[in-house]
């Protein structure tokens, strides 16, 4: 099995061992070699700059989906196909064309072991954000917890008006 540098940078040693990949020195080199300047994404509706890390947007998120630059959107894959895409395909895509990432409806991407799937994807995406130093946004209509997110934005309605709340700072933005 051949793994490329960007994949080795994202995969942990534990995961590499599960794949019987033994050349850990190559993986260490990959983790040290890939260095990028920050690539942030602006949330245009509230003029908010999202940092290069894992961000969760929960609730009526579609109201907020207007980004600059346009993110690379994770295709509508489910279960093991999603996990494989994130671990093996996405690092190669970003290596050749680095961009912020958008993944919609994470909690609907698993047909079994949903909580465990969400937890694992959260960790993978946080690693991708770190390796490629870019913003990764996960959107979900459900209120979910992403263990590795650094910022959570809740979108909902107050008196008929759509508002976005930055959970960590309690800042409120009206969208209309």
């Amino acid at each position, binding site marked *: *099995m051949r793994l490329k540098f960007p994949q080795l*940078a*994202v995969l*942990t*040693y*534990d*995961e590499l061992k*599960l*794949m*019987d990949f*033994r*050349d*850990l*020195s*190559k993986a*260490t*080199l990959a*983790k040290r070699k890939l260095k990028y300047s920050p690539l942030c994404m602006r949330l245009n509706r509230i003029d908010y700059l999202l940092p290069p890390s*894992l961000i969760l947007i929960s609730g009526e998120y579609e109201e907020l989906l207007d980004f600059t630059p346009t993110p690379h959107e994770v295709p509508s894959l489910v279960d*093991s196909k999603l*996990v*494989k895409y994130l*671990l*093996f395909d996405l690092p190669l895509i970003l290596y050749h064309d680095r961009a912020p990432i958008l993944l919609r409806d994470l909690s609907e991407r698993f047909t079994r*072991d949903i909580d*465990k*799937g969400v*937890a*694992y994807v959260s*960790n993978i995406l*946080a*690693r991708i*954000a*770190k*390796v490629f130093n870019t913003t990764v946004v996960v959107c979900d209509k459900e209120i979910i917890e992403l*263990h*590795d997110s*650094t910022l959570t934005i809740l979108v909902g309605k107050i008196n008929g008006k759509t508002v976005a709340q930055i959970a960590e700072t309690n800042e409120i933005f009206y969208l209309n």
Partner: protein
Amino acid sequence: MEEAVTLFRFLLKLDKRVFSMRDISTNSKYSKRVLGLLEKYGLVDVHKGSMYVIVLTSRGEKARKIAQHFVSFLEGKEVSLEDTRAGKGREVSLEDLPDYLKNNPWLSVLKERK
């Protein structure tokens, strides 16, 4: 006792789980001695490729925590020797999976890629 002091001094300054010989010391004689002790007490696994990659075992990780807790104890801070889940996991590791993912069923996807 002398070996324990050498290991204690090294574990105290170690800030990662995976490291190279150079991270031990730029003095190759000293780094070989420390590596020998780490292996003797089962604190590390050594992988030799184009360079040495040294990985703390769970026993090594425990020893490192004990060393750090000892310093906190001397400084008069409350310490617990129980494993703690670090904060909310803000700083994701590229080296290890967090404990809560170790038996995650979705890891089986990796075995399909062998």
